[in-house]
Each structure stands twice: as structure tokens, then as C-alpha cells.
């Protein structure tokens, strides 16, 4: 059912149409989008005698061996070096060019690792390009998880024969003996193919498809009322994407029309697991739904028109639909609830999206520049709202509930002014307006007004200073708990994305290039949020960050760089254990420090080069509770030290030997995991993970041959 306010807000999108039509109706028959040679330029002597146009094939290949000292999923999280032992180094590239614009590019990266990539591009420049890309992205999540369940990563996970059910983990006498490790990881394998075709000097078209298979396991859980177990949920996803576009470009007018389709398939639609606890009400087995198959289709038109040398207008509109109609699972796998019926066999879920923008930028005169923008984003959830009989955790029949399809409309309007006081000094200011309409939530409408000012000082190419301040006020139209949500929310709760809020932010950036060989950057930013009428929930937050870096070319043979940074993220929140006014308060204080140093040096010109990179990052997270008594949790810390040393020695013109040494040490503490064994928590069979620590060194030797 459409909400009245949503309808009203949506009807206002009509204001975009006249502007839209006027901008897209202007067809400019200008020159082609290429350089025009002036008639009076005599090119008869422009023979390009010294031009070294590329022709023929060149290739290079790097082969070598590496060795990892220790196994660690955290170290190998994204680089594939999670296991100790040797690994192969296989990289390479090949390129072919002819004088008619024909080209072939082949790149191979990390062929012997889980991060392998093969990229091929071929075509005739100016006419067409074909490409193929195969890419793997690993994510090694945890190698410290253990579980008593068999069939991890599959859709059915059962306990091993002889399992002893109990009311708490302490009574599960076979838990320890049946524990076995379960690696948590995913691996993406992507294959993309596509083509870009220049149909004419004005018309281009592009097409590409991407097929991604994502396999592995991820952290999940299955509960029976207040008893639960962490489970390794199967990841067996396939996502296909399709992009197709046609674009038309002239000197003053550019447009594109495109289609984007995304098709997600999950080969496992459910996860069924055995209850490890003493079953209550016949709940011996549980079943949960995994991510349903779904699709997204979107048509988009984007255009820009240069009204004059000083004025540009651009805009876009995208109309899309997300949908999924996966068959429902049974209300419960508990036979006691076999008689319950579903209102429909599937959700027939549909969300229509409209995203439209219009932007104008103009130089009113030599000093004054104005820009204005309008935006409209709609997520119109047309999923039928039905009343469901439901069973909580396959155990107890609960009060029927109605699904609440959430819809949103976000409208934005922005006006910005730049005024160049003198050549090197520019003053900017602006006003941003945003309102968000929501259905089926506590707040129907929030509006936010943001006022900002910026001062930019730029002295040639040597000095660049930007100082910005902003103040924003967000108001909620009223806070009314949703009646159909049970149990009812504390009426004093203000969800932070819908709460009244004052936000003050400021930043300063200094870029300094006193000479071509030295670059200095200083950066500081701060943001403070005050949730002015929130008694329960998030009440305030602050984010402060400082960064500085410097890079220096000491000579043509040497360069150094360094960076240092600190960030502090703090927040306050409160709650009520008595369903009334606040009676507990919490503070989160996160601090992150980082330092980086690096050097590169050519010991022997064009013969021997060496370098080093060192990074140190430390973070801490402090949680303090106050329930009338101050109660501080142990700090959660991480510390990463990373050192990379590398050197290249050119043995002969086309043969280079490479050596690299990479050492990383990572220490962390996390009270959510440390000393929490599978049977530590009475009502949770946990994975028993510990926060990761590692001490890994990697040695790599390879030879690069060009031919």
C-alpha cells in the first residue's frame, strides 16, 4: 500500500521534467569530437622523423619462487599467501602494435596464486576493442574456527553420531571430542568479456558481461530460542552482470543510454541444522533461509550539454527494478507446525527505483561561479504486505506478523557559489537541502539543511590550502513507534538515522610543493554530531583525523616518503533497562595511529635499484559502560608492523633479477573472542576463535625476461 506522503513527494518529481526535456531536446550539430587542424597551418614539413611509433610485439615474463614462513589466514586474507611453504611467481605481459592501430595486450598477474588475473585486450584503436578478464579475489576470513557440526559449508549440517544433547554447553560431553576446524573463506572467480565499438566519430557503443562464481563459507548462526550455535554457512553464489550502452558525443552535447542487469543465483536456498541442545517443543532441527535469487534491471539516460563556454548542464535518470520471487521455505521444519499455512508461496518482492539528477554549472563572470543541483532517489517497495503465521526459531508459535515493505524517497537540492577574490584566493559557500521520506518507520520525514563555506588559497603550483566549515541541522517530522512492531520500542528511543541532529564539521588541507622534487601534505578534519533530542540511542559522536605526508626526490636516483596519521572516533549512547528513562550510558573510544616510511635508491644507475617500505599501524577500541558504576572493558587492540625490502638487478639489457623480503607482524586482542571456547558460553556453541596474531616473513626471488 502506498503511503500518502510518498505519493505526494513522488508527484513533485514532475518538476524535473520540463528542465529535463529542455536540456535533452537541444541537439547540437557541432564538429566531431576531435581536434580540428586549422587551415592555415602548413604541415608539409611535419614528417615525424623522430617519432618512434610502436610496431611489433614485445613481451616480458617473470618467473620465480617464494616462500612463506608461517600459515595465517589473516596475513593471507586478500593476498592468497595464507599457507606456509613455497609458491610460484608467474607474471607476464605481452603487447602487439601495428601501424594501422591494431593492438593486443595480454597481462598475467599472480598466475600461481589465488589472486590470479588474466587480462586480454585486442582491437583496432579508434574502431573497436574486445576484452576478456579473468580475476580471482580470495577472502580468507578465519582459520581458528571449530565446530562439532559435520557438513560445514553445505545446506545440511548435522551433529556427529553419539552427540549428547544438553541444556547448556557444559553438559555437551561430546562437544570437545567432536570439535574439528572449519576454515571460513570465500573465493570469487570472475570472468568478464566485452566490446567497445566506435560506430562513428559521434556514436559509440559498449557491451560487457561478467560472470562471477563465489564459493566458500561464512560465519553464521542458528538459534533455538535463547540457545544457539555458530555455523559455517555455505557460500555458493553466482552473479551475472550485463552492461550495454550507446553514447552520442558532439563538441557541446554528450549523451548515453545504457542498460544494467544483475542476476544473482544462490545454489543453496536453505541451511538446515540439528539442535545440539535439549530440544524444546520438538525442535530437533532448525532451518533458515539463505539469500534468495534476485534480479535488478536498470535503464539509464545521462546527458550533458554545454550551453556556452561558461555554462554546462548535465543530468541523468535511471529507472530500475529489483525483484525476487524465491519459493518460501516451510514456516517451520518442526512437525508440530505442519498445519500452519502460508498466505502465498513466495514474496513476489518488487522494488522500483528512480534516480534522477540535474546539475547546472556556470561562470557568471570572471570571478563568480555558480552551481546548482537537484536530486531525486526513490526506492518504491511494491512487495505485497501479508500477514504471516510464524514460529520463533522452530520452537514456539508466535503472534502473526505483517511484513513491512520499506520505501524511501530522498530529495536533494544544492546551491554553491565560488567567488575568486584574487587569482590565488577563492571563497566558496553553499546550501544543501535534503529530505527523506520513509514508510513503515518511526519517522515519516527528516529534513536537513547544510550550510558550508570554503576558503581556497592556491599560489601557483607551490601552495594549496583549503579550509572548510559546515553546519547542518536535521529535523525529524515526529517520532511515532510503529504499531505493528512487537514488542514495542522504548518511546524515548531515537534511531540515529532518523533523529534530530546538529552536525558541525571542519577540515583543512595544505599541499605544499616548494620545489618540483618535494611534496608536503597536511590534512586535518573533524566532525561532531549532536543528537539533540535523543534520550535513548546514539546521543553524540565525534570523528577527528590528522594526517601528514611528505615525499622527496633526493636526486634522480633516490626518493623517500613518509606519512603519519591519527584518527579518533568517539561516540556516546544510552539505554534503559527499565523501559523508561536512560539508566545506562556507554562510551566508545577508538583510536588509530599509522606511520609509513619508504625509500627508493638506484645504487648503480640502470643496473641496481633497491627500496624499502615500512608501515606501522596501531588501533585501540575502548568501551566504557556506566550503569551507575563505571565499568571499563579491556581494550581491544591491534598492531601491524610491515616491512618490505626489494631490489632489482639488471643482469643484461633484457634480463632483470628481483629479490624481495616481506616481514609482517600482527598482534591483536579482542575480548569478544579471546578465551571464549566453544563451551564457554552456556547457551552459545561458539567457534572458539581467538583474535589473530601472526609473525610471517616472505622471501621472493624471480627473474624478469623481456623479449
Amino acid at each position: 500500500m502506498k503511503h500518502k506522503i510518498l505519493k505526494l513527494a513522488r508527484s513533485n518529481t514532475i518538476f524535473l521534467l520540463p528542465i529535463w526535456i529542455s536540456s535533452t531536446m537541444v541537439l547540437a550539430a557541432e564538429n566531431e569530437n576531435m581536434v580540428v587542424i586549422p587551415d592555415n597551418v602548413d604541415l608539409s614539413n611535419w614528417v615525424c622523423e623522430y617519432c618512434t611509433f610502436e610496431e611489433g610485439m614485445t613481451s616480458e615474463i617473470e618467473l620465480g619462487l617464494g616462500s612463506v614462513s608461517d600459515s595465517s589466514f589473516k596475513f593471507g586474507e586478500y593476498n592468497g599467501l595464507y599457507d606456509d611453504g613455497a609458491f610460484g611467481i608467474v607474471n607476464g605481459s605481452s603487447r602487439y602494435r601495428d601501424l594501422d592501430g591494431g593492438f593486443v595486450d595480454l597481462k598475467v598477474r599472480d598466475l600461481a596464486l589465488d589472486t590470479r588475473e588474466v587480462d586480454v585486450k585486442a582491437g583496432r584503436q579508434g574502431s573497436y576493442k574486445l576484452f576478456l578478464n579473468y580475476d580471482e579475489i580470495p577472502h580468507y576470513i578465519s582459520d581458528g574456527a571449530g565446530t562439532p557440526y559435520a557438513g560445514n559449508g553445505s545446506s545440511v549440517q548435522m551433529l556427529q553420531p553419539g552427540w549428547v544433547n544438553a541444556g547448556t554447553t557444559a553438559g555437551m560431553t561430546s562437544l570437545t571430542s567432536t570439535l574439528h576446524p572449519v576454515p571460513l573463506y570465500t573465493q570469487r572467480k570472475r570472468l568478464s568479456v566485452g566490446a567497445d565499438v566506435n560506430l562513428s566519430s559521434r556514436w559509440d557503443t559498449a557491451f560487457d558481461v561478467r560472470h562471477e562464481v563465489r564459493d566458500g563459507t561464512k560465519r553464521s548462526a542458528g538459534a533455538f530460542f535463547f540457545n544457539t550455535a555458530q555455523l559455517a554457512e555455505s557460500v555458493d553464489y553466482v552473479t551475472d552482470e550485463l552492461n550495454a550502452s550507446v553514447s552520442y558525443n558532439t563538441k557541446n552535447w554528450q549523451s548515453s543510454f545504457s542498460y544494467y542487469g544483475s542476476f544473482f543465483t544462490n545454489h543453496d536456498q536453505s541451511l538446515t541444522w540439528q539442535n545440539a541442545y535439549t530440544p524444546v517443543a520438538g525442535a530437533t532441527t532448525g532451518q533458515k533461509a539463505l539469500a534468495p535469487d534476485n534480479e535488478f534491471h536498470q535503464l539509464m539516460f545521462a546527458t550533458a550539454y554545454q550551453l556556452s563556454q561558461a555554462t554546462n548542464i548535465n543530468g541523468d535518470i535511471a529507472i530500475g527494478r529489483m525483484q525476487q520471487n524465491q519459493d518460501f521455505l516451510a514456516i517451520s521444519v518442526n512437525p508440530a507446525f505442519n498445519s500452519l499455512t502460508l498466505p502465498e508461496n513466495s514474496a513476489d518482492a518488487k522494488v522500483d527505483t528512480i534516480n534522477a539528477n540535474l546539475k547546472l554549472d556556470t561562470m557568471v563572470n570572471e570571478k563568480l561561479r555558480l552551481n546548482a543541483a537537484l536530486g531525486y532517489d526513490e526506492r518504491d517497495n511494491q512487495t505485497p504486505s501479508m500477514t504471516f503465521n510464524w514460529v520463533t526459531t522452530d520452537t514456539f508459535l508466535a503472534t502473526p506478523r505483517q511484513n513491512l515493505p520499506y520505501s524511501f524517497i530522498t530529495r536533494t537540492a544544492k546551491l554553491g557559489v565560488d567567488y575568486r577574490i584574487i587569482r590565488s584566493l577563492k571563497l566558496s559557500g553553499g546550501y544543501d537541502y535534503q529530505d527523506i521520506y520513509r514508510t513503515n518507520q518511526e519517522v515519516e520525514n527528516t529534513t536537513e539543511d547544510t550550510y558550508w563555506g570554503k576558503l581556497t588559497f592556491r599560489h601557483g603550483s607551490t601552495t594549496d590550502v583549503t579550509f572548510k566549515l559546515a553546519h547542518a541541522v536535521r529535523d525529524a517530522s515526529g517520532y511515532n513507534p510503529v504499531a505493528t512492531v512487537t514488542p514495542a520500542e522504548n518511546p524515548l528511543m531515537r534511531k540515529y538515522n532518523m533523529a534530530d541532529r546538529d552536525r558541525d564539521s571542519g577540515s583543512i588541507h595544505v599541499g605544499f610543493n616548494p620545489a618540483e622534487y618535494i611534496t608536503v601534505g597536511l590534512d586535518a578534519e573533524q566532525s561532531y554530531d549532536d543528537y539533540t533530542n535523543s534520550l535513548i540511542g546514539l546521543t553524540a559522536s565525534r570523528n577527528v583525523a590528522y594526517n601528514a605526508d611528505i615525499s622527496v626526490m633526493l636526486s634522480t636516483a633516490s626518493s623517500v616518503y613518509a606519512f603519519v596519521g591519527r584518527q579518533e572516533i568517539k561516540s556516546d549512547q544510552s539505554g534503559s533497562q527499565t523501559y523508561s528513562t536512560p539508566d545506562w550510558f556507554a562510551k566508545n573510544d577508538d583510536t588509530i595511529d599509522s606511520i609509513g616510511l619508504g625509500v627508493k635508491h638506484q645504487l648503480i644507475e640502470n643496473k641496481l635499484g633497491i627500496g624499502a617500505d615500512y608501515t606501522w599501524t596501531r588501533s585501540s577500541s575502548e568501551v566504557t559502560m556506566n550503569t551507575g558504576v563505571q565499568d571499563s572493558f579491556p581494550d581491544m587492540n591491534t598492531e601491524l608492523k610491515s616491512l618490505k625490502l626489494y631490489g632489482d638487478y639488471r643482469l643484461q639489457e633484457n634480463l632483470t633479477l628481483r629479490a624481495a623480503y616481506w616481514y609482517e607482524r600482527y598482534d591483536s586482542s579482542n575480548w569478544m573472542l579471546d578465551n571464549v571456547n566453544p563451551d564457554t558460553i552456556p547457551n552459545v556453541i561458539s567457534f572458539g576463535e581467538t583474535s589473530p596474531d601472526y609473525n610471517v616473513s616472505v622471501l621472493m626471488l624471480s627473474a624478469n625476461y623481456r623479449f
Partner: protein
Amino acid sequence: MKIQNVGILPVIPLLLYCIAALADPVEKSATAAENATATGETAPAMSAETVQPQAAKPQAASADSDQPAAADNAMSVTRPPVIEEYSKKGADTCLKCHDEDSEYPVLDIFKTKHGVKADPRTPFASLQCETCHGPGVKATIFMEEAKKAGSHVGKVRPGEKRPPILNFGVKSDEPVAEQNRMCLGCHKGGQHIYWQGSVHDNGEIACANCHTIHAVQDPVLDRATQADVCYRCHQQQRAEFFKPSNHPVRFGQLKCSDCHAVHGSNTASLLVKPTLNQTCYTCHAEKRGPFLWEHAPASEDCMLCHTAHGSIHPALLKKRPPLLCQQCHSQAGHPSVARTTAGLPGGNPSGFLLAGSCTNCHSQVHGSNHPSGVKMMR
């Protein structure tokens, strides 16, 4: 009330358009320059060896270039009209000096798309080096200006500094808009549709601040090296990627432009898709749904719970449960209970606090399609 208030906002761009249309000084000044040239206010002769005297030509794109030139000279009353001429031998003039042993080697341009003569869109199918670097010979009607903007390809005495040619990037003294005008002359369509008025355009970022043109491989176009280019300005983002939970940009598995349309877009953070969530769904399509039971903040904005670049909390969360969840959930019963250190190992280990905390039971935080999934437990 607010809806009605915002009703007048749509007229703002129309008003701006009217203002811009009425006051378009750029074209006026361009016309003035052309008129000045037409009346014979031409420049003194330059080095005869390198100049084509017959090609003395008013700045071919003076109208195009007037915008930055105006900014460059905002406080001066008049500016001598610039006479620009192309060199006599084109690229050969340049390459005699700029070979691989020079201070500014350029020959790698022939291993890039710009150096493909067979493609009629490229510089080398046109005015060669001077397609981008402007006419190699400059002169003005005043000698003092001639010294400043004189002929880069002319003769200079030993020890005398060679007058600059239009160059690009951090080493350039040319106004950024003047540099970018050269690039935008060809690179207007596709992802550049949104350039004008974008954050990077308003911030006066030169194309060459990010792009290295005379290189076989432009680092900003390579997945493994792109981020280092972005970090030159976005220092905080570099620090973010060193946090324990991160998107794998540091490892070269993702590049900034996988999520960000760096040449401009109409989203708040220059995202590649029309909304933030749509951008996230390009890699996380399993979280798109629509689910029967939605978790409202997940449908509204992924960033309500997550950060994009890096976090010291797992899964790129802004903070950890249970406090993360208790920012919005305070119903009577277990959601509202203060979880203290009493729930740590050694005390009464609490499933509401340890391991996955809230997600020990409510594991479907992105939504559930199970008929009994209203509490995100099925």
C-alpha cells in the same frame, strides 16, 4: 510543510540559467580578442628558424581558453592578445631535445593511445605534440610579455631559461582550467559527462595531477598502483585501508575507481552507481533482496552500520555489537539490557556480548526471506 517549502527549489537552476545566459562574459571577451587581432594588433616576429610567419594566427581556441585565462588575469584591466603559431616541423622540433636522455623524456608517448597515428582522434593524427601543448610558438605585442610567454622552441642563450610551453600537472604554472581545457577538448563523453562542476573540477584538480600521459602504463589506470595516486590528496583513505578490516585496495584487489566515478557523478561520494546501496550491490548482490523481512537501515543505506574503506571492527562495522545494535533497539527485555564486563569469560560469559553477540541469534541482519524470519533468526 517541508514539501511545500522545497517546491520553489526547482526554479533555482532555471534562475541560474537565466543569469548565465544574460551574462556570458566569456564569449564577449573572446569576441574582443578576435576583434583586436582583426584590427592588426599583431605580435612582433619570433625566431625565424622555428616560426611559420605566414601562420601567425590568433589563438585558435581563444574563446575556449578565455575562461581560465580570465581567471588567470582576473585583476588586470587589459591583457595583450596572444598570438600563437605552430612550429615549423611539428613533433620533430620537440623530439630533437626530448629524447630518452633528456630531463623531460617523452618518447613513451608512442607506447600510449595518444601516440597512435592511425586513430584519427589522437594527437599524433593531428597537430602532434602541439595538439595538447598548444602552439609551440608564442608572442605578444609587448616585449615584456614575449619574454614571459615567448617561444619555447626558439633559440636561447647559454644559461638563459627557455620560455615555457603549455605543460601540465604539479610542475605547471598554467591555470588548471587552461590545462584541463586541452584534455576536455577530446575527452568529453562517457565518464567525463559529469566533469564540469564536479568536486574535482571545483577543487581545481588538473587532469595531469592524476594522469601520467608520457608513460607506457599510467599508474592511475592500473589496479595495483591507482590508490597511491589517489592517496596524494586522500591521505585519510590510505590510513583507512591499513585498518584490520578493510576492502582489499591495499592488496591491489580493488581499485578506488571500482566504487568511485572519479570524473564526477551525481552521488555524494562520486559513486559509480546512482545510489550507495546500488554501488555496494555490484559486489554484494546477495544483500540486495528485496527480502520478505527487510532490515530497514540495510535497505536504506549500508553506511548506517558499515564504513566503506576500513574499520578496526570486523566486517567494516562502525562499532561492534551489542552497542551497535542498541543504538536503535531498546525494547523491553534483552535488547535493552546493559552488557557489562560481568558477561566476560571469568564472570558469567554472555552470549549477548561474546562471539557474535547479537548475531549469535539474529544472523540475518541484512534481511530474511523465511516466513518465520521476522526477527532475523531464520
